[in-house]
């Protein structure tokens, strides 16, 4: 007897995202249901633009680094042509991983299983004992290539879909936040080659993405690091703060702290220091930017979550890599700015202090993520509330929805974009 699954049954086997995502609440199963995660891979991670790495990580011809798109192992290479290439880390023969090291320099790769060799752009160069294939050059095979690769100010993004919005369309207003970061370099250049820390986190990736611009938690979760370091960051996220949370569209959001820093009017305060501590940097910035330098040095770096996985947190960059419905890896590195040596060593030490193995900031957050994941496994109540600040949101002069510093405006922006992507049929 032959049985076929009727179309209607197949349709209902997918979660009904419209029913699970409401304007002021989202359903807990979105964080715990493996079917949702499988859908996310197909509709978000393997289709939308995803941040992969930075061009500065492969400065020389032949350089390569192992990167990821969700659970996919990707090799980012610098070819002899000078371009950055993304290939899947999978031999075309039997599917073995071709690269093992996290980074290195190689114009050609050799699979350790049967010795097949590839150009670092993916082209198959050859295989041992070619008579078994009727001679050389007889196989129309290569490493898998990522269909679309594009970059913005050195930030390399990939889309595994052949068609779709361009990177510029995807980034939209978030591109301006990357510009803000680059502007803090006297050379307009960002370098992410300081090395990456990796923290395995037993939580759904969306808890991280939502948290990155949640201005409601810092006063609670990070109170110990704020008190130990005497950091001025805490009050930026309070009811008295003039900072705002902004939905930048396409799932991107930011905590815009500029209103607070402008009010304080002190260059370098965003970095927790003063001009006199970094005199060479400040002098160089004034030389390059002239009258605009004061504003740039006062307003500081962006705090922006670029959907779905790139978080620029002023002086460091985080990349969220989902592995399964309840596990992900947080990759983090210190931002390094071209021509800003005085600042760069401080950014490395500050990053180690906040996200290093003994750092406090990321450990605080990760504790919350993992507790959150456990809590979400409880049966009641079924929903998570995301309504904070809905009543006091407004559109800013550029038309972006903006809430108070501690409002969940960014989280709602995330879900609205997420729902759009998840409802699309493949």
């Amino acid at each position, binding site marked *: 007897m032959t049985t076929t699954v009727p179309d209607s049954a197949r349709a209902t086997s997918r979660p009904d995202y419209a029913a699970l995502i409401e304007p002021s609440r989202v359903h807990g199963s979105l964080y715990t249901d493996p079917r949702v995660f499988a859908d996310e891979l197909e509709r978000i991670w393997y289709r939308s633009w995803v941040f992969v790495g930075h061009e500065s990580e492969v400065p020389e011809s032949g350089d390569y680094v192992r990167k990821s798109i969700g659970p996919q192992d990707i090799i980012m290479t610098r070819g002899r042509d000078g371009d950055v290439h993304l290939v899947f880390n999978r031999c075309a023969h039997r599917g073995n991983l071709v*690269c093992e*090291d*996290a980074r*290195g320099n190689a114009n050609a790769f050799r699979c350790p299983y049967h010795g097949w060799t590839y*150009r670092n752009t993916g082209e198959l160069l050859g295989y041992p004992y070619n008579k078994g294939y009727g001679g050389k050059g007889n196989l129309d095979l290569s490493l898998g290539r990522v269909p679309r690769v594009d970059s913005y100010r050195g930030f390399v993004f990939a889309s595994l879909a052949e068609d779709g919005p361009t990177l510029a369309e995807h980034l939209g207003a978030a591109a301006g936040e990357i510009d803000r970061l680059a502007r803090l370099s006297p050379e307009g250049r960002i370098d992410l080659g300081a*090395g*990456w820390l*990796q923290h395995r986190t037993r939580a759904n990736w969306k808890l991280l993405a939502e948290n990155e611009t949640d201005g409601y938690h810092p006063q609670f979760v990070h109170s110990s690091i704020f008190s130990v370091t005497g950091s001025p960051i805490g009050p930026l996220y309070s009811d008295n703060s003039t900072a705002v949370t902004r939905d930048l569209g396409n799932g991107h959001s930011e905590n815009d702290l500029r209103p607070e820093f402008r009010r304080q009017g002190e260059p370098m305060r965003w970095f927790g220091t003063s001009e006199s501590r970094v005199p060479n940097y400040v002098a160089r910035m004034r030389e390059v930017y002239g009258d605009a330098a004061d504003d740039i040095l006062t307003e500081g770096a962006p705090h922006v979550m670029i959907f779905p996985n790139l978080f620029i947190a002023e002086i460091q960059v985080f990349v969220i890599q989902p592995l399964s419905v309840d596990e992900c890896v947080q990759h983090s590195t*210190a931002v390094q700015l071209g021509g800003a040596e005085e600042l760069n060593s401080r950014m490395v030490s500050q990053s180690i202090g906040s996200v290093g193995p003994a750092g406090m900031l990321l450990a605080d957050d990760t504790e919350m993520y993992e507790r959150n994941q456990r809590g979400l496994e409880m049966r009641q109540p079924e929903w998570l509330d995301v309504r904070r600040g809905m009543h006091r949101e407004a559109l800013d002069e550029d038309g972006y929805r903006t809430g108070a510093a501690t409002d969940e405006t960014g989280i709602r922006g995330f879900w609205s974009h997420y729902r759009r992507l998840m409802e699309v049929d493949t």
Partner: protein
Amino acid sequence: MSERDSNTGDAHDVTPDAPCAGTVRVDDSGGGIVGNEFAEVGVAVDHSGNGPRLRLEDYRTGRVRNLDALELETIIWLPEERLTQLLDPSTTRWREEPDR
């Protein structure tokens, strides 16, 4: 200068100042090792003859080849496609016919 770093993706792997993975050691005579995860080759300028030559040693097999200045110059001028052909394993080591 530095051993290969073992940044293989373990959690809490700290590499703030790590150089590129791979092996580059330079000894007193100016020799060293050029290595990555695919191959490891010892490099030294050998002065035992009447003139200098480059001594290359494949550390995984012990096989050695000496190259004189003209041979090195030839390699520098080798067209890209010729070098690519040499990277086909069937061209050199792993082939059915014995070396002629």
